[in-house]
């Protein structure tokens, strides 16, 4: 074989070899059995990276594991990345995800490591409430561990409330009166947006009217076009017509808006305190929060939407054992004390020692018999329905009008989804 011919054969072989090597890099798969070292962690909460990294000193001391965190700030990009990684042998050892339908999709494909043992021990040790277990249970087994827990409450600008002599409402009627009073004084009562967080008011009003009705939407037993849902939407429309909501097209940071007094109240998760602190507001001085009273005064237990996001280990990851070791540690009081203080968020572990007593009180209060937890709409609704609903609630907020066209569109998506599940 002459030289040129050799080159002509070797060159493409070399390129294809390189390409194959690139595609198959890191092959071998399967858990390595390693339980100490650096664990690769991926999350769509890029803003929380400093807090995750700040835990390394504690985790290294306790279990000799440290996190190497990669944060994505775009949720869609993140989701596509995680899904695509399952097609390769480079699956993350530990990653954040969503509970509800999103988690079920991964578990159905057998992509997530079973954490039932970790849960049983944590419950036995009193490190986690049994109530939380249901969000992590699929087919009788537990998957992932809770990364965070947040209750959806109403944040308010304390100075505005004080100025107009408004006390925190204890009934829905009081809340409505307060809103009217604020509007009369030229202050917009509530925040709203037309992108992503378009669901909280719907969630608050439906769950607060009838938790069964709210839960029925997630199971397909209740239609979005149900007259009871339509009636709630019409109440929302009335409130919008009274000018009770901020402009849906605003792009200003909602924390900044609450500080400036662009509106007096904002319905958000308890992690929002961190954002308010970041814009220079002081908890209990400049801002505070209250549990939103139930719309229906006859409800004996006020529904409180709860959001809990999981931290999962991939079943076929090379770092599976390392991920599980970290997950086990994550449930302990030491880890949760460090985490909740770093994040300024409610801990799921009742034994965690918190600097902010208010958050701890809230956790204990909602665990009492006057409240009932309902899953946040974002996790409660199956993903294909949720995506359409988020768009439609956004469109309704931007152009409030007859709710039927919006609800019909969501119901169409729901019909399609439930038909595909049969």
């Amino acid at each position: 074989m002459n030289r040129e011919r050799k080159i002509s054969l070797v060159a493409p072989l070399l390129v294809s070899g390189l390409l194959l090597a690139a595609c198959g890099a890191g092959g071998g798969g399967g858990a390595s059995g390693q339980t100490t070292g650096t664990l690769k962690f991926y999350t769509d909460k890029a803003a929380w990276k400093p807090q995750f990294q700040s835990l390394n000193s504690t985790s290294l001391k306790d279990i000799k594991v440290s996190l190497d965190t990669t944060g994505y700030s775009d949720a869609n990009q993140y989701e596509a990345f995680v899904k695509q990684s399952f097609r390769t042998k480079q699956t993350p050892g530990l990653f954040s995800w969503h509970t509800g339908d999103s988690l079920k999709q991964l578990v159905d494909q057998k992509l997530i490591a079973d954490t039932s043992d970790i849960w049983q021990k944590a419950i036995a040790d009193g490190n986690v409430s049994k109530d939380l277990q249901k969000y992590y249970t699929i087919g009788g087994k537990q998957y992932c561990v809770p990364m965070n827990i947040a209750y959806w409450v109403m944040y308010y600008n304390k100075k505005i409330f004080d100025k107009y002599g408004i006390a925190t409402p204890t009934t829905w009627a009081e809340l409505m009166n307060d809103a009217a009073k604020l509007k009369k004084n030229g202050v917009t009562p509530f925040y709203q947006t037309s992108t992503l967080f378009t669901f909280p008011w719907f969630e608050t009003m439906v769950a607060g009217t009838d938790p069964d009705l709210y839960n029925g939407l997630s199971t397909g037993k209740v239609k979005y076009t149900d007259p009871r849902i339509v009636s709630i939407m019409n109440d929302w429309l009335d409130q919008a017509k009274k000018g009770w909501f901020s402009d849906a097209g605003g792009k200003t940071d909602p924390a900044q808006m609450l500080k400036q007094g662009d509106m007096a109240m904002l319905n958000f998760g308890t992690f929002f305190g961190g954002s308010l602190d970041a814009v220079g507001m002081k908890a209990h001085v400049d801002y505070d929060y209250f549990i939103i009273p139930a719309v229906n005064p006859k409800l004996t237990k006020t529904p409180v939407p709860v959001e809990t996001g999981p931290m999962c280990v991939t079943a076929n990851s090379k770092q599976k054992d390392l991920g599980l070791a970290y997950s086990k540690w994550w449930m302990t009081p030491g880890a949760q004390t460090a985490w909740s203080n770093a994040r300024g968020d409610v801990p799921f572990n009742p034994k965690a020692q918190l600097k902010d007593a208010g958050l701890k009180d809230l956790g204990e209060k909602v665990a009492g018999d006057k409240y009932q937890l309902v899953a946040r709409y974002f996790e409660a609704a199956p993903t294909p329905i949720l995506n359409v609903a988020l768009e439609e609630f956004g469109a309704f907020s931007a152009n409030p009008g007859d709710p039927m066209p919006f609800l019909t569109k969501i119901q169409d998506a729901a019909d399609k989804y439930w038909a595909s599940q049969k």
Partner: protein
Amino acid sequence: MAKKKEHYRWAARGFVAPGVLLVAVLLYLPLLWTLFLSFSTYNGLGEPKWAGLANYLEMFQDPDFLSSMFNTLLWVVGTLAVPVGLGLVLALMTWNLKGGVWLRLPFLIPYAISGIGVGLIWSFVLQSNGALDQALHAFGVGDTPRWLLDAPLNTIVMIVAASWQGVGVNALLFTIGLQSIPKEPLEAARLDGAGGARLFRSILWPMLRPLTTVVIGLSIVASLKTFDIVLGMTKGGPGRVSETLALTMFNDTFVNSQYGLGSAIAVFLTVVTLLASILYLRQQLSKKNEI
């Protein structure tokens, strides 16, 4: 001699092969994979399931897709009318002027910004109670339109934002075209008494055609794949009313996890872009022969 030629051929094949392989792996394979996905249902997990033409049928029955098609058409027409049109006007007004380059330069600066950056800047200008609304309030205009919330107004203002970025580069291209026109026919026309509109219609415009063909061709392709500026300004909302085909493709694929439907839109968009380019270029190139 023949042996040497044969050697040369083999060597040439060897040098070309890596490039061909890279193109095949990085361009043709993804294209074929997308084509395959467009005939399947797939949520990004597990294996795609064959679905025949279902995605294509669903696509054409979906009112959101039809509104996205209408918006994309608006983008094509708007981008031709505003940035290309204004670019030509700017070039015509400044190409013969002493120091004209200084007049064109400010228009070129926004070209250095990415589409998503332009989107962010303009969304602060056009958002409810944003910079423009506040300026209008200062002049006593009370009721301002909801620039980014009402369709098709939101698409129109986004075309204006894109024009802010695109006028400069089009003006630059047209200026290059104008400067490359030989002086003789221009002087002859002027001696014959042609000036202003007549000079433009009879001399400048026909002689600019090769460049106009390129500018318009590029503009059609760019506007058909409009994505970043809309993502930066409205994310396609409220609801899905300001989506373009590229954004619908992205949303269906990565937000709604309907990879099959997203791929069908990608295939449709590719076919439309190719057809538009081929038809336009063929028509223009055949006209060129008539000059």
